[in-house]
Protein backbone atom coordinates (compact mmCIF):
# COMPACT_ATOMS: atom_id res chain seq x y z
CA UNK A 1 0.00 0.00 0.00
CA UNK A 2 1.24 3.41 -0.91
CA UNK A 3 0.54 4.84 2.50
CA UNK A 4 2.18 2.07 4.52
CA UNK A 5 5.66 2.92 5.71
CA UNK A 6 8.54 0.98 7.20
CA UNK A 7 9.81 2.92 10.19
CA UNK A 8 12.88 2.11 12.27
CA UNK A 9 13.82 3.71 15.57
CA UNK A 10 15.54 2.91 18.84
CA UNK A 11 13.22 1.99 21.69
CA UNK A 12 14.75 1.82 25.16
CA UNK A 13 18.13 1.08 23.62
CA UNK A 14 17.01 -1.59 21.14
CA UNK A 15 16.42 -1.14 17.43
CA UNK A 16 12.86 -1.79 16.27
CA UNK A 17 11.24 -1.75 12.83
CA UNK A 18 7.51 -1.51 12.21
CA UNK A 19 5.29 -1.33 9.12
CA UNK A 20 2.60 1.24 9.80
CA UNK A 21 -0.05 3.18 7.93
CA UNK A 22 0.84 6.87 7.70
CA UNK A 23 -2.03 7.83 9.98
CA UNK A 24 -0.92 5.60 12.87
CA UNK A 25 -0.16 7.53 16.05
CA UNK A 26 2.95 6.69 18.04
CA UNK A 27 0.96 5.74 21.14
CA UNK A 28 -0.82 2.99 19.18
CA UNK A 29 2.41 1.67 17.69
CA UNK A 30 3.99 1.50 21.13
CA UNK A 31 1.04 -0.15 22.84
CA UNK A 32 -0.42 -2.36 20.15
CA UNK A 33 2.51 -3.34 17.92
CA UNK A 34 5.43 -3.19 20.35
CA UNK A 35 3.61 -4.25 23.56
CA UNK A 36 4.90 -1.23 25.44
CA UNK A 37 1.77 -0.44 27.42
CA UNK A 38 3.50 1.84 29.93
CA UNK A 39 2.55 4.98 28.00
CA UNK A 40 -1.18 5.41 28.61
CA UNK A 41 -3.97 6.81 26.49
CA UNK A 42 -5.72 9.45 28.56
CA UNK A 43 -7.35 12.33 26.75
CA UNK A 44 -6.08 11.70 23.18
CA UNK A 45 -6.13 15.48 22.72
CA UNK A 46 -2.56 16.40 23.81
CA UNK A 47 -3.69 17.79 27.15
CA UNK A 48 -3.23 15.15 29.84
CA UNK A 49 0.34 13.91 29.27
CA UNK A 50 -0.34 10.25 30.20
CA UNK A 51 1.13 9.23 26.83
CA UNK A 52 4.38 11.19 27.32
CA UNK A 53 7.53 9.52 26.01
CA UNK A 54 11.04 10.80 25.42
CA UNK A 55 11.90 11.28 21.74
CA UNK A 56 15.33 12.53 20.66
CA UNK A 57 15.94 14.23 23.97
CA UNK A 58 12.58 15.94 24.35
CA UNK A 59 9.34 15.02 26.09
CA UNK A 60 6.52 14.50 23.59
CA UNK A 61 2.89 13.47 23.78
CA UNK A 62 2.77 10.27 21.74
CA UNK A 63 -0.94 10.73 20.98
CA UNK A 64 0.03 13.71 18.84
CA UNK A 65 3.02 12.28 16.98
CA UNK A 66 2.73 10.13 13.87
CA UNK A 67 4.89 7.02 13.95
CA UNK A 68 6.20 7.89 10.48
CA UNK A 69 7.67 11.06 11.99
CA UNK A 70 9.89 8.93 14.25
CA UNK A 71 12.11 7.36 11.56
CA UNK A 72 15.66 7.24 12.92
CA UNK A 73 14.55 8.48 16.32
CA UNK A 74 15.77 7.56 19.79
CA UNK A 75 12.89 6.81 22.15
CA UNK A 76 12.58 6.13 25.85
CA UNK A 77 9.40 4.95 27.54
CA UNK A 78 8.77 4.23 31.21
CA UNK A 79 9.79 0.64 30.51
CA UNK A 80 13.32 1.86 29.83
CA UNK A 81 13.83 3.67 33.15
CA UNK A 82 14.61 0.59 35.24
CA UNK A 83 18.12 -0.72 34.64
CA UNK A 84 19.19 -4.26 35.55
CA UNK A 85 16.30 -4.79 37.94
CA UNK A 86 17.00 -1.57 39.80
CA UNK A 87 14.38 1.13 39.78
CA UNK A 88 15.41 4.54 38.46
CA UNK A 89 15.83 7.14 41.21
CA UNK A 90 12.59 8.77 40.06
CA UNK A 91 10.64 5.51 40.28
CA UNK A 92 12.07 4.80 43.74
CA UNK A 93 11.22 8.33 44.86
CA UNK A 94 7.63 8.10 43.59
CA UNK A 95 7.35 4.91 45.67
CA UNK A 96 8.87 6.42 48.79
CA UNK A 97 7.07 9.76 48.61
CA UNK A 98 3.72 8.22 47.64
CA UNK A 99 3.76 10.14 44.34
CA UNK A 100 0.87 8.16 42.91
CA UNK A 101 -2.51 6.82 43.85
CA UNK A 102 -4.32 5.23 40.89
CA UNK A 103 -1.12 5.29 38.84
CA UNK A 104 -2.65 6.15 35.50
CA UNK A 105 -0.64 9.35 35.00
CA UNK A 106 2.56 7.90 36.49
CA UNK A 107 4.34 6.65 33.34
CA UNK A 108 3.90 10.08 31.77
CA UNK A 109 4.94 11.84 34.97
CA UNK A 110 8.08 9.70 35.25
CA UNK A 111 9.21 10.14 31.64
CA UNK A 112 8.52 13.87 31.77
CA UNK A 113 10.32 14.24 35.11
CA UNK A 114 13.25 12.25 33.66
CA UNK A 115 13.73 14.81 30.89
CA UNK A 116 13.04 17.75 33.21
CA UNK A 117 15.89 16.70 35.51
CA UNK A 118 18.19 16.15 32.51
CA UNK A 119 17.40 19.69 31.35
CA UNK A 120 17.57 21.21 34.81
CA UNK A 121 19.14 18.94 37.48
CA UNK A 122 18.74 21.64 40.13
CA UNK A 123 15.11 22.46 39.39
CA UNK A 124 13.41 24.18 42.31
CA UNK A 125 9.81 23.57 43.31
CA UNK A 126 8.39 26.20 40.95
CA UNK A 127 10.48 24.93 38.05
CA UNK A 128 9.30 21.37 38.73
CA UNK A 129 5.67 22.47 38.83
CA UNK A 130 6.11 24.44 35.63
CA UNK A 131 8.03 21.59 34.02
CA UNK A 132 5.27 19.10 34.83
CA UNK A 133 2.47 21.46 33.77
CA UNK A 134 1.69 19.29 30.74
CA UNK A 135 0.91 16.24 32.88
CA UNK A 136 -2.41 16.01 34.69
CA UNK A 137 -2.99 13.96 37.85
CA UNK A 138 -6.53 13.66 39.19
CA UNK A 139 -5.60 11.88 42.44
CA UNK A 140 -2.64 13.28 44.30
CA UNK A 141 -3.03 17.04 44.21
CA UNK A 142 0.56 17.02 42.90
CA UNK A 143 2.20 17.65 46.29
CA UNK A 144 3.81 14.23 46.58
CA UNK A 145 4.71 14.15 42.90
CA UNK A 146 6.68 17.37 43.37
CA UNK A 147 8.27 15.98 46.55
CA UNK A 148 9.23 12.80 44.69
CA UNK A 149 10.91 14.73 41.88
CA UNK A 150 12.77 16.88 44.43
CA UNK A 151 13.89 13.74 46.27
CA UNK A 152 15.06 12.07 43.05
CA UNK A 153 16.91 15.23 42.04
CA UNK A 154 18.86 15.17 45.32
CA UNK A 155 19.75 11.50 44.87
CA UNK A 156 20.77 11.95 41.26
CA UNK A 157 22.94 14.92 42.22
CA UNK A 158 24.69 12.76 44.81
CA UNK A 159 25.22 9.93 42.29
CA UNK A 160 25.23 11.56 38.85
CA UNK A 161 25.78 8.31 36.96
CA UNK A 162 22.36 6.95 37.96
Amino acid sequence: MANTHTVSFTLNGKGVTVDVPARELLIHTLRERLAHTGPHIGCETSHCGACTVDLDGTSVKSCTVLTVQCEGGDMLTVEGLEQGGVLHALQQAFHEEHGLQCGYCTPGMLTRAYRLLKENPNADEQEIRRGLAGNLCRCTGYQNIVKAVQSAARKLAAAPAA
Partner: protein
Amino acid sequence: MIPASFDYHAPRSVADAVKLLVDLGGDAKLLAGGHSLLPMMKLRFAQPAHLIDLGRIADLRGIAQSGDEIRIGAMTTEAELLRSSLLAEKVPLLVEGAGWIADPQVRARGTIGGDISHGDPGNDQPALMLALDASFVLHGPKGDRVVKADGYFIGPYATQLEPDEILTQIRIPVPPPGSGWSYQKLKRKTGDFATAATAVMLQMKGGRVAKASIALTNVGPTALKASAAEASLVGKAIDDASVGEATRLAMGICEPTSDQRGDVAYKTAMCGEMTRRALQAAAARAKG
Protein backbone atom coordinates in the same frame (compact mmCIF):
# COMPACT_ATOMS: atom_id res chain seq x y z
CA MET B 1 -9.09 9.02 17.77
CA ILE B 2 -7.07 8.44 14.63
CA PRO B 3 -6.87 10.73 11.59
CA ALA B 4 -8.42 9.66 8.30
CA SER B 5 -6.02 8.05 5.84
CA PHE B 6 -3.54 10.17 3.94
CA ASP B 7 -0.30 9.79 2.02
CA TYR B 8 2.79 10.96 3.89
CA HIS B 9 5.67 12.82 2.26
CA ALA B 10 8.91 13.87 3.97
CA PRO B 11 10.86 16.12 1.58
CA ARG B 12 14.46 17.02 2.47
CA SER B 13 14.49 20.49 0.93
CA VAL B 14 12.20 23.50 0.62
CA ALA B 15 12.34 23.15 -3.18
CA ASP B 16 11.11 19.54 -2.96
CA ALA B 17 8.36 20.56 -0.56
CA VAL B 18 7.12 23.30 -2.90
CA LYS B 19 7.24 20.87 -5.84
CA LEU B 20 5.07 18.46 -3.85
CA LEU B 21 2.63 21.27 -3.01
CA VAL B 22 2.35 22.16 -6.70
CA ASP B 23 2.09 18.55 -7.91
CA LEU B 24 -0.41 17.42 -5.29
CA GLY B 25 -2.65 20.48 -5.56
CA GLY B 26 -5.25 21.48 -3.02
CA ASP B 27 -5.47 18.11 -1.27
CA ALA B 28 -2.11 18.54 0.45
CA LYS B 29 -1.40 20.13 3.83
CA LEU B 30 1.93 21.10 5.32
CA LEU B 31 2.80 19.38 8.61
CA ALA B 32 4.95 21.47 10.96
CA GLY B 33 4.89 20.50 14.65
CA GLY B 34 1.48 18.91 14.22
CA HIS B 35 0.00 20.15 17.47
CA SER B 36 -2.80 22.06 15.79
CA LEU B 37 -3.18 20.04 12.57
CA LEU B 38 -3.14 16.50 14.01
CA PRO B 39 -5.84 17.26 16.62
CA MET B 40 -7.96 18.80 13.84
CA MET B 41 -7.41 15.71 11.68
CA LYS B 42 -8.44 13.41 14.54
CA LEU B 43 -11.71 15.34 14.80
CA ARG B 44 -12.14 15.36 10.98
CA PHE B 45 -12.05 19.15 10.97
CA ALA B 46 -9.25 18.58 8.49
CA GLN B 47 -8.99 15.61 6.15
CA PRO B 48 -6.09 16.22 3.76
CA ALA B 49 -5.27 13.50 1.22
CA HIS B 50 -1.56 14.26 1.56
CA LEU B 51 0.62 15.46 4.40
CA ILE B 52 3.93 17.10 3.56
CA ASP B 53 6.11 16.89 6.67
CA LEU B 54 8.56 19.80 6.92
CA GLY B 55 10.35 18.18 9.87
CA ARG B 56 13.22 16.75 7.80
CA ILE B 57 14.28 20.05 6.25
CA ALA B 58 17.27 21.21 8.28
CA ASP B 59 17.34 24.63 6.55
CA LEU B 60 14.06 25.55 8.22
CA ARG B 61 15.48 25.51 11.75
CA GLY B 62 17.65 27.89 13.69
CA ILE B 63 17.90 31.37 15.19
CA ALA B 64 20.56 33.83 14.02
CA GLN B 65 21.24 37.54 13.81
CA SER B 66 21.77 39.07 10.38
CA GLY B 67 22.61 42.78 10.56
CA ASP B 68 19.88 44.47 12.56
CA GLU B 69 17.45 41.56 12.16
CA ILE B 70 16.88 38.31 13.99
CA ARG B 71 16.06 35.51 11.53
CA ILE B 72 14.23 32.45 12.79
CA GLY B 73 13.62 29.33 10.71
CA ALA B 74 9.92 28.55 10.54
CA MET B 75 10.38 25.01 11.94
CA THR B 76 12.15 26.27 15.05
CA THR B 77 10.19 24.98 18.03
CA GLU B 78 8.65 27.12 20.75
CA ALA B 79 10.97 25.32 23.21
CA GLU B 80 13.99 26.40 21.15
CA LEU B 81 12.78 30.01 21.35
CA LEU B 82 12.54 29.68 25.12
CA ARG B 83 16.11 28.37 25.39
CA SER B 84 17.72 30.88 23.01
CA SER B 85 20.26 33.15 24.69
CA LEU B 86 20.31 35.32 21.55
CA LEU B 87 16.56 35.94 21.83
CA ALA B 88 16.80 36.48 25.58
CA GLU B 89 19.28 39.26 24.91
CA LYS B 90 17.79 40.80 21.77
CA VAL B 91 14.07 39.96 21.67
CA PRO B 92 13.02 39.03 25.21
CA LEU B 93 9.34 39.56 24.36
CA LEU B 94 9.50 36.43 22.20
CA VAL B 95 10.98 34.37 25.04
CA GLU B 96 8.38 35.62 27.50
CA GLY B 97 5.59 34.96 25.01
CA ALA B 98 6.80 31.45 24.12
CA GLY B 99 6.72 30.56 27.81
CA TRP B 100 2.98 31.21 27.86
CA ILE B 101 2.28 28.81 24.98
CA ALA B 102 0.67 25.47 25.87
CA ASP B 103 2.88 23.15 28.00
CA PRO B 104 6.43 21.75 27.83
CA GLN B 105 5.61 18.75 25.62
CA VAL B 106 3.59 20.83 23.17
CA ARG B 107 6.32 23.49 23.06
CA ALA B 108 8.83 20.73 22.26
CA ARG B 109 6.96 19.95 19.02
CA GLY B 110 5.06 23.12 18.19
CA THR B 111 6.86 25.52 15.84
CA ILE B 112 6.85 29.29 15.43
CA GLY B 113 6.01 28.94 11.74
CA GLY B 114 3.12 26.59 12.34
CA ASP B 115 1.79 28.82 15.11
CA ILE B 116 1.83 31.80 12.73
CA SER B 117 0.55 30.10 9.59
CA HIS B 118 -2.26 28.16 11.20
CA GLY B 119 -4.08 31.49 11.45
CA ASP B 120 -5.86 30.63 14.68
CA PRO B 121 -6.78 33.89 16.48
CA GLY B 122 -6.18 32.03 19.75
CA ASN B 123 -2.54 31.38 18.94
CA ASP B 124 0.01 33.60 20.67
CA GLN B 125 2.67 34.15 17.99
CA PRO B 126 0.51 36.32 15.70
CA ALA B 127 0.15 39.09 18.32
CA LEU B 128 3.82 38.75 19.29
CA MET B 129 4.75 39.15 15.61
CA LEU B 130 2.54 42.23 15.24
CA ALA B 131 4.06 43.82 18.35
CA LEU B 132 7.58 43.09 17.07
CA ASP B 133 6.86 44.40 13.55
CA ALA B 134 8.02 41.06 12.11
CA SER B 135 8.13 40.06 8.45
CA PHE B 136 7.63 36.62 6.97
CA VAL B 137 9.50 35.02 4.07
CA LEU B 138 7.09 33.03 1.91
CA HIS B 139 8.65 30.66 -0.62
CA GLY B 140 6.70 29.46 -3.64
CA PRO B 141 7.31 28.28 -7.21
CA LYS B 142 8.35 31.82 -8.22
CA GLY B 143 10.79 32.20 -5.33
CA ASP B 144 10.65 34.27 -2.15
CA ARG B 145 8.42 37.15 -1.20
CA VAL B 146 8.56 39.00 2.10
CA VAL B 147 5.35 40.22 3.74
CA LYS B 148 4.77 42.19 6.93
CA ALA B 149 3.03 40.57 9.87
CA ASP B 150 0.69 43.59 9.87
CA GLY B 151 -1.77 42.54 7.17
CA TYR B 152 -0.72 38.87 6.99
CA PHE B 153 -3.62 37.65 9.13
CA ILE B 154 -6.86 37.85 7.14
CA GLY B 155 -9.38 35.95 9.25
CA PRO B 156 -9.81 32.75 11.24
CA TYR B 157 -7.44 30.16 9.68
CA ALA B 158 -6.82 32.52 6.75
CA THR B 159 -3.51 34.21 6.03
CA GLN B 160 -1.74 35.66 3.00
CA LEU B 161 0.09 32.35 2.51
CA GLU B 162 -0.88 30.99 -0.92
CA PRO B 163 -1.65 27.26 -1.34
CA ASP B 164 1.65 26.67 -3.16
CA GLU B 165 3.78 28.63 -0.66
CA ILE B 166 5.69 27.73 2.49
CA LEU B 167 6.53 30.13 5.33
CA THR B 168 10.28 29.58 5.61
CA GLN B 169 11.61 32.35 7.85
CA ILE B 170 10.52 34.95 10.38
CA ARG B 171 12.45 38.23 10.41
CA ILE B 172 12.32 40.48 13.44
CA PRO B 173 13.99 43.91 13.57
CA VAL B 174 16.10 44.02 16.74
CA PRO B 175 14.31 46.45 19.08
CA PRO B 176 16.41 49.47 20.13
CA PRO B 177 18.35 49.02 23.40
CA GLY B 178 16.29 50.07 26.38
CA SER B 179 12.97 48.98 24.87
CA GLY B 180 10.42 47.68 27.34
CA TRP B 181 8.38 44.56 26.66
CA SER B 182 5.60 42.44 28.10
CA TYR B 183 3.20 39.67 27.16
CA GLN B 184 0.30 39.35 29.58
CA LYS B 185 -2.01 36.39 29.10
CA LEU B 186 -5.08 35.25 30.99
CA LYS B 187 -5.88 31.57 30.56
CA ARG B 188 -8.03 29.21 32.55
CA LYS B 189 -5.43 26.48 32.79
CA THR B 190 -2.15 25.30 31.33
CA GLY B 191 -2.67 24.35 27.72
CA ASP B 192 -5.71 26.54 27.21
CA PHE B 193 -5.91 29.29 24.65
CA ALA B 194 -5.98 32.84 25.96
CA THR B 195 -9.20 34.27 27.31
CA ALA B 196 -7.37 37.46 26.34
CA ALA B 197 -3.72 38.43 26.00
CA THR B 198 -1.77 41.54 25.08
CA ALA B 199 1.75 42.00 23.69
CA VAL B 200 3.49 45.35 24.19
CA MET B 201 6.78 46.86 22.99
CA LEU B 202 7.63 50.30 24.35
CA GLN B 203 10.34 52.85 23.56
CA MET B 204 10.73 55.72 26.03
CA LYS B 205 12.61 59.01 25.66
CA GLY B 206 12.94 61.50 28.47
CA GLY B 207 10.26 59.69 30.46
CA ARG B 208 7.76 59.89 27.62
CA VAL B 209 6.63 57.30 25.08
CA ALA B 210 8.57 57.56 21.82
CA LYS B 211 6.92 54.51 20.26
CA ALA B 212 4.42 51.90 21.42
CA SER B 213 3.38 48.64 19.79
CA ILE B 214 0.30 46.90 21.16
CA ALA B 215 -1.24 43.69 19.80
CA LEU B 216 -4.12 41.61 21.12
CA THR B 217 -4.68 37.83 21.15
CA ASN B 218 -8.02 36.02 20.83
CA VAL B 219 -10.35 39.00 20.94
CA GLY B 220 -11.19 39.12 17.23
CA PRO B 221 -11.13 37.09 14.03
CA THR B 222 -7.34 37.54 13.95
CA ALA B 223 -4.71 38.94 16.27
CA LEU B 224 -5.37 42.69 16.35
CA LYS B 225 -2.96 45.62 16.18
CA ALA B 226 -4.27 48.31 18.51
CA SER B 227 -3.13 51.25 16.38
CA ALA B 228 -5.27 53.94 17.99
CA ALA B 229 -4.11 52.87 21.45
CA GLU B 230 -0.49 53.00 20.26
CA ALA B 231 -0.91 56.50 18.82
CA SER B 232 -2.61 57.78 21.97
CA LEU B 233 0.48 57.07 24.06
CA VAL B 234 3.08 58.86 21.95
CA GLY B 235 4.60 61.84 23.78
CA LYS B 236 2.97 60.94 27.08
CA ALA B 237 4.31 59.57 30.35
CA ILE B 238 3.04 56.15 31.37
CA ASP B 239 0.57 56.96 34.14
CA ASP B 240 -2.97 56.02 35.09
CA ALA B 241 -4.49 58.54 32.69
CA SER B 242 -2.47 57.55 29.60
CA VAL B 243 -2.72 53.82 30.31
CA GLY B 244 -6.45 54.17 30.96
CA GLU B 245 -6.98 55.91 27.64
CA ALA B 246 -4.87 53.37 25.71
CA THR B 247 -6.72 50.52 27.41
CA ARG B 248 -10.08 52.08 26.49
CA LEU B 249 -9.00 52.37 22.85
CA ALA B 250 -7.70 48.77 22.79
CA MET B 251 -10.99 47.50 24.20
CA GLY B 252 -12.78 49.48 21.51
CA ILE B 253 -11.43 47.25 18.73
CA CYS B 254 -12.23 43.96 20.48
CA GLU B 255 -14.74 41.68 18.76
CA PRO B 256 -14.43 38.46 20.75
CA THR B 257 -16.84 35.58 20.31
CA SER B 258 -18.74 34.37 23.35
CA ASP B 259 -17.74 30.84 24.38
CA GLN B 260 -16.90 28.77 27.46
CA ARG B 261 -14.07 31.20 28.27
CA GLY B 262 -16.53 34.02 28.79
CA ASP B 263 -19.01 36.35 27.15
CA VAL B 264 -18.17 39.34 24.99
CA ALA B 265 -18.17 41.88 27.83
CA TYR B 266 -15.96 39.72 30.07
CA LYS B 267 -13.40 38.98 27.35
CA THR B 268 -13.28 42.64 26.35
CA ALA B 269 -12.76 43.67 29.97
CA MET B 270 -10.00 41.07 30.36
CA CYS B 271 -8.32 42.35 27.21
CA GLY B 272 -8.35 45.77 28.83
CA GLU B 273 -6.81 44.41 32.02
CA MET B 274 -4.10 42.50 30.12
CA THR B 275 -3.34 45.66 28.13
CA ARG B 276 -3.07 47.73 31.30
CA ARG B 277 -0.73 45.22 32.92
CA ALA B 278 1.38 44.80 29.79
CA LEU B 279 1.84 48.56 29.42
CA GLN B 280 2.85 48.94 33.06
CA ALA B 281 5.21 45.97 32.96
CA ALA B 282 6.80 47.19 29.70
CA ALA B 283 7.19 50.70 31.14
CA ALA B 284 8.92 49.28 34.24
CA ARG B 285 11.43 47.50 32.00
CA ALA B 286 11.99 50.36 29.55
CA LYS B 287 14.96 52.66 29.89
CA GLY B 288 15.00 56.16 28.58
